[in-house]
């Protein structure tokens, strides 16, 4: 076990910078989600920690030991691959036991630990099967068991749930979290699914073009994204740009976002109220309702404001009084205004 730290990691592929001076600490026993669009460098960062990618410069420290010059097989890591990478020529038990076999753990001890690991992922009865006889969710569990049975210092997950269908993915998220809590291993996982990252992680890091844009606990990052990219990438956000003045942010149509001192403000779609009458709230503006999308308990309204598209999400019952289209008022609490840099 232990803390994982990367310092000033740089990795270039030709002219492209896959990692551009990334420094980050992954706390001991934490569940850290690395998030970013494709090509943001999140997988490169994970593979650099695993040892499959040699950084041009920078350090990788696992449990206090610098490992830049340690090959993958000696880094004491556990890794779950996107396609699970189960060995097709071995049974489930042989797959799980492979890491122990390599470490020359004696047979009886090995069998016991394999059984324990399979029990942990609730597949105790499937040890004799071959991987091709398993469902996607079961393969995922075997891959987990195989990665943790050697008691690695860090568990690395590369988009572990992306190959599963939606319902199974939600189940596995809960399962993954349970397993991680039970063994308390430092876990780093890569995903492009922001919901998955918010659900699973106690800390997240957001990468863009090889740079670490933002990191912290999911709620803190969500509530205070600080820049437009993070605001839009993590959750959804309506962005308003204008000129800051004494009372707040003056928008192009004359509306004022009270108390906002920066030139760009973001408001989450779920924090905006839609009314037909002009409300009393300090932050209000008039927009044109373009479309209502019914989504069961929650509904989505698409609006046009000064040629820009806005989105509001609310309970369906609150939206029933609205017309299909036409002018409406939007308002929100000043506390829900997110000031962004730049």
């Amino acid at each position, binding site marked *: 076990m232990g803390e994982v730290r990367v310092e000033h990691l740089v990795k270039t592929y030709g002219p492209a910078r896959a990692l551009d001076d990334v420094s980050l600490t992954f706390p001991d026993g934490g569940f850290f989600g690395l998030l970013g669009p494709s090509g943001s460098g999140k997988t490169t960062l994970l593979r650099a920690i695993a040892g499959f990618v040699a950084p041009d410069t920078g350090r990788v420290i696992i449990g206090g030991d610098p490992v830049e010059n340690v090959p993958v097989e000696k880094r*004491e890591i556990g890794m779950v691959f996107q396609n699970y990478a189960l060995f097709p020529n071995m049974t489930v038990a042989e797959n799980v036991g492979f890491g122990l076999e390599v470490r020359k753990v004696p047979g009886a001890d090995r069998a016991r630990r394999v059984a324990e690991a399979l029990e942990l992922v609730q597949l105790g009865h499937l040890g004799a099967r071959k991987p091709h006889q398993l469902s996607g969710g079961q393969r995922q569990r075997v891959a987990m068991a195989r990665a943790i049975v050697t008691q690695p210092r860090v568990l690395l997950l590369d988009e572990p749930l992306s190959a599963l269908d939606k319902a199974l993915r939600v189940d596995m998220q809960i399962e993954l979290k349970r397993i991680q809590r039970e063994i308390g291993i430092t876990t780093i996982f890569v995903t492009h699914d922001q919901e998955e990252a918010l659900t699973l992680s106690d800390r997240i890091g957001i990468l863009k073009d090889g740079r670490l844009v933002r990191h912290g606990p999911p709620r803190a990052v969500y509530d205070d994204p600080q820049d437009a990219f993070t605001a839009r990438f993590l959750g959804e956000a309506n962005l308003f740009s204008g000129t800051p003045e004494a009372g707040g942010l003056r928008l192009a149509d004359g509306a004022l976002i009270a108390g906002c001192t920066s030139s760009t403000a973001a408001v989450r779609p779920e924090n905006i109220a839609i009314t037909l009458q002009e409300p009393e709230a300090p932050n209000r503006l008039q927009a044109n309702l373009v479309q209502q999308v019914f989504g069961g308990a929650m509904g989505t309204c698409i609006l046009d404001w000064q040629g820009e598209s806005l989105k509001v999400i609310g309970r369906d019952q609150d939206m029933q009084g609205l017309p299909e289209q036409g002018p409406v008022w939007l308002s929100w609490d000043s506390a829900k205004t997110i000031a962004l840099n730049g």
Partner: protein
Amino acid sequence: MSSLSARQDRIRAFTLLSPAYLWLTVAVFLPLSAMVFFSFLSDVPFGDREWHGTLENYQEFFQTSTYATLLWKSLKLGLMVTGISVLIGFPCAYVLAKVIKGRSREALFLLVILPFWSNSLVRIFSWAIVLRGNGVLDFAANAVLPWDVRINLMFSPTAIVIGLVHSYLPYVILTSYLALQAIDDSLIEAARSLGAKRRTILTRLILPLAAPGILAGAVLIFVPVVGSFMEPRLLGGRRGTYYGTVIEDQFVAVFNWPLGAALSFILLAVVLVILGAFSPILRRART
């Protein structure tokens, strides 16, 4: 309705397969049938020769130990050439499939295929020029080494093996390459992440997964090498008498087609028995 469409499917399948069946009939079934027929005759049924049905040709194989000895010699040659080809070919295939990337892989691939595109007779005579005394190899060795060496490999079993390995190596490289190519790199990465060293990855993962390809290549080599006659004759000279050359003699020199045909079918039977004995291993490798 469903039986109608099932019938239509069958008709369509038959139509699509008919060229293949026609080809098999003309190219495989008819000539083989003719040879089976010949093998039971007392003489070739051409011109005004007298002939009648007999089992004598098959009996002749068992009457003297000559044929069995030669067959054993040929089987040993087959094993040796197959073994050497796999030992050379598998590492080549591994390098091609897993180490080299991009354009240089295509270039190397071309070099592997190249022997296929040259005439086998030309290939064998080229080897004769290289291997004979005062030949290319002799000359090159003397140019490099300070002391006087005589290299004359011509008309020796070594020359035959060299020629055969060169001819058949591409088969094992190609089949191994395809098998190795199918092994996902993430499997190797997973094994490394679990702490496996190169040797473990090779023996526990790559070799078992590539085994079907290696075996397929081995079979492709073993079968024709056991019956080979050109390399033994041209590179082996006086010592190049093998089972294949005896069969060739029956057809070309002695004009005893029935005996040649019978010897061919005995060879076919022996090869089939050997492959049959190995088939459980082949089948296990496939799962």
